[in-house]
């Protein structure tokens, strides 16, 4: 790495940018790994708990056990909207049995959609940086290499020596930029694809949960 001391200012700047991209993308990878893992595992636990518990108020009181699951947000939003509808109709005593007007179902669906959207936004936060890293860092590295080779050839022209011993070090230094660009890009692209798949699975789980929640509410209303 010491021979980087001989590189030009532009190549050094390019290397700094690439290192920045690499550090931040790995930070996002670590962060997202934990976030997605927790979201998946706690969502599974929450669904088990949801289907075992028959009462919404009982579920609502235990939401703090599943803080990392996006489904708890959906449930909280749906339950809150349901509660408001019931309170509006002065039917507080009927809340425990989920009694509401049929027209209120639309309100609950909208609340669930809004919660789903906000959770998708939260889950996809920073992932775009990985895509940016994967697509741009090889080009940034390539730019550094081209610039380095240009400088090397200029130096060769000035010294007047065209031997391999003079040409090779400059080109070797310049190629480091491309290498670091690829080192930054490859994990970022792999992580981006992995997180995209995991987030897609979570979105499907949230959609399914929303549908199930609305079904339960509607069944209860029509039963009344």
């Amino acid at each position, binding site marked *: 790495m010491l021979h980087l001391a001989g590189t030009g200012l532009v190549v050094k700047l390019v290397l700094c940018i690439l290192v920045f991209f690499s550090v931040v993308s790995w930070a*996002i990878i*670590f962060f997202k790994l934990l976030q997605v893992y927790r*979201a998946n595992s706690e969502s599974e636990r929450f669904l088990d708990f949801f289907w075992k518990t028959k009462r919404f108020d009982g579920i609502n009181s235990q*939401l703090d056990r599943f803080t990392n699951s996006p489904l708890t*947000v959906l449930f909280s939003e749906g339950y809150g909207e349901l509660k408001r509808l019931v309170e509006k109709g002065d039917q507080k005593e009927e809340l425990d049995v989920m009694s509401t007007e049929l027209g209120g179902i639309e309100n609950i669906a909208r609340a669930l959609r809004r*919660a789903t959207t*906000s959770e998708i936004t939260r889950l996809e936060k920073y992932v775009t940086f990985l895509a940016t890293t994967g697509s741009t860092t090889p080009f940034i590295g390539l730019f550094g290499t081209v610039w380095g080779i240009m400088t090397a050839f200029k130096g060769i022209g000035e010294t*007047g020596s*065209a031997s391999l011993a003079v040409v090779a070090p400059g080109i070797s230094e310049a190629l480091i930029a491309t290498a670091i660009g690829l080192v930054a890009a490859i994990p970022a692209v792999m992580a981006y694809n992995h997180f995209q798949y995991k987030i897609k699975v979570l979105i499907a789980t949230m959609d399914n949960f929303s549908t199930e929640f609305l079904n339960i509410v509607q069944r209860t209303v029509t039963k009344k």
Partner: protein
Amino acid sequence: MSHTRQSRDTGLGWGLATSCVVHASLAAFFLLYRFSPPAPLEAPVYYVDVVNLPVASPRAGSPVTGGSSLPAASPPPPKPAEMALPRKQTPARAAAPKKATSSRESDASQAFEERMAKLQRAIDERRQEAAIDALRRKTAGSGRQPERVGTPGGTGQEAGSDYASYIQSRLTDAFQSTIAHQSKTPEVIVKLTIDAGGHIARKRIERSSGDKIFEESVFKAIARAEKTFVPPPGGGEFEYGFIFRPQGVGKK
């Protein structure tokens, strides 16, 4: 607007810290791997070519002329012997299977061997005579100027030729580090004039190669070699032409 419940996230800070640690570890590992001292191997063996050992100072003689002003007096020694060997063996091998059948051939080869031995003896005698003659002349020169034995300072002509060899050896050394060329076989003839102080008074290209890079490397070599020049013998100016080729520097 109702209060929206949000999932709890830890933030990117710890991820950044972990990433920095990972990158720093990788960089440290890379540096250690790259710049760790290599395992000690066998002690290096150096070979010194004692025969062709270069001589830096002209006072001790030139490496090109071998410290003698009589290079033509000593003929190249091993050539006759080398020539004699294969001729001696080849007919012997070829004749071996036919030994019983042709005795005339073996007689001829014996006569040839004897002739070659005679020639060898004659060459040895001539070489010895030349060496003795050279020694006599050298001794006579040293009687006149004992402090300048083997130097270009003895007589006018001899001094000039030796100093040229010295300059040639300095130019050769400097040219090795500056040589660069574009064309395949460039050749430049430069006439140098060295003043009494050992500095280059004039340099003139007598024949250009058309290869600009080569000519620049020649001038760089001259400038570099100039620092090692000593004043020419006799206290006057010294002028000589040198031929620069990718193979080295020669005298014109």
